């Protein structure tokens, strides 16, 4: 049962990711493929007991970020082949290089990981546990991320204000 769920949602996630890459002509289709990937990933997170991360995945990525993508695409009315027509070989090569390097690194890390996988408790990844870890062990990182986000918001407001003035 678990394996069947895992493989079906993995296939959906990969198919969605391919959809993002292959839909260069239609940016709305690409954005929606991204949503499919995000939802499938959320299911995988929940299957791994990381329920809080799974729900956040849906809320933040599917619920907010891709909605903003759609908003921008619709606002600028990017219908048809007005995007992605020109090819950028240098960027593509750099992208391929980065993807390969990260994949190799991940594969190596997985090879080095101790087998069998350690047992984890049912509570692992719950909202309470996540909060405990974030606000004790990683408090500084959380605060730093908060300041960064605030800086981003202030920057966006200043830029929007300038274009209005």
């Amino acid at each position, binding site marked *: 049962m678990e394996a069947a769920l895992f493989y079906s949602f993995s296939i959906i996630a990969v198919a969605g990711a391919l959809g993002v890459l292959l839909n260069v002509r239609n940016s*709305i289709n690409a954005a929606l493929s991204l949503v499919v990937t995000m939802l499938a990933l959320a299911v995988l997170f929940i299957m791994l007991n990381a329920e809080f991360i799974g729900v956040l995945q849906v809320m933040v990525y599917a619920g907010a970020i891709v909605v903003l993508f759609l908003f921008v695409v619709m606002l600028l009315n990017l219908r048809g082949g007005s995007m992605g027509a020109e090819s950028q070989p240098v960027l593509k090569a750099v992208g391929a290089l980065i993807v390969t390097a990260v994949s190799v690194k991940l594969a190596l890390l997985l090879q080095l990981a101790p087998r069998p996988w350690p047992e984890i408790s049912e509570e692992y990844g719950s909202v309470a546990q996540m909060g405990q870890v974030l606000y004790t062990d990683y408090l500084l990182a959380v605060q730093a991320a908060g300041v960064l986000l605030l800086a981003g918001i202030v920057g966006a407001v200043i830029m929007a204000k300038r274009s209005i003035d």
Partner: protein
Amino acid sequence: MTVGTVAIILFIFAVLAMGFMPIMTWVERKQSALMQDRVGANRADILGVRIIGLIHPITDAIKMITKEDFIPTGAHRFLHTICPLIAFTPALAAFAVIPYGGQYSAWGAEWSLVAADVDYGVLFVFAIGSIAAYGSILAGWAGNNNWGMLGSMRVSAQMISYEVAMGVSVVGLFMVFGTVRLTDMGIAQQETFRLLGFLEHFGWLGPGNWVVDHITLPMWGIVVQPLAFFMFLAALLAENKRPPFDTPEGESELVAGYFIEYSGMKFGLYTAGELLEVVVIAGLMTAMFLGGWSLPWISDEELKYGIGLLLGPNMGNVIAMVIHVGVFFGKLLALIFFQMLIRWSLPRFRYDQVMNLGWKILLPLSLANIVVTGLVMLLIKEVTG
């Protein structure tokens, strides 16, 4: 996946889809008639039987199903077809985590009256609600209609704006109850606190004062977080896109807004989805702010024990369950009535007013609410030790 869980899921589907949805259209018509001093829908009949207009939902359904299902030229066929489903399904799914009763055991069987008692309860509703936004945002685009596009633009801006306020406004409630699991919130709300307890803690009155001990309030969300109640309700109403927050569909300017190109049952799904969201909002508000399934001042255990003294523990549990489900749906109906009252009382907000309310009033107030809640909680901890 036990038989009990399946039974609960079937119950939710039966009550919501078969019961609430048709009746909600009737409630809306009759309540608006009541408020406008009219008689309201009462003409449809089966062999002369009219039962105060309750036949109308059936005729609605027949009309919707038999109408032509029209897809305009230049529309995105797949998205156009799937959008009503994306908008409708989350409302149904959200009810999975809302508890309409506590835990009961009788004759060796255990019942827990919630389909999915998950750790991330409220967050699930937020997540599934953010998926529902796609059904509205894409509908206008997929129909290839300019009015629809304008409606979609407005709906995406409105839903993103109010999702922020919606999430932040209830953080204070999470802090007070220390959980986001809706069943735990229901249990936490059965407790009471002494309204004048501070007199004793500051040493102004000796311990054991009769008045101090007997003036108590239930720990309902609306009592401990009154500001959050109204802010959360406002944010949810804006997410629902019904009047007064219906700029995305504004009939007088955008004809019907984002679902302008829909006909037949697809149009019906949008209407039904909005009405079902009214029920979900009422259920969520009940579970979070109005004490859920419990009666005020009487905890689950006391009620079960009290009835158990008269009729034995098994019957005590069963009767307590019936009372609790009744109490939950009573509160739910009261909140549905309140939402309809708002819908028929206020005129539509202008688009800039909607944005101002979300970003300049609700968001700063909810952030202030978090700070004040934290300070008060620290103070209480300091004083009571």
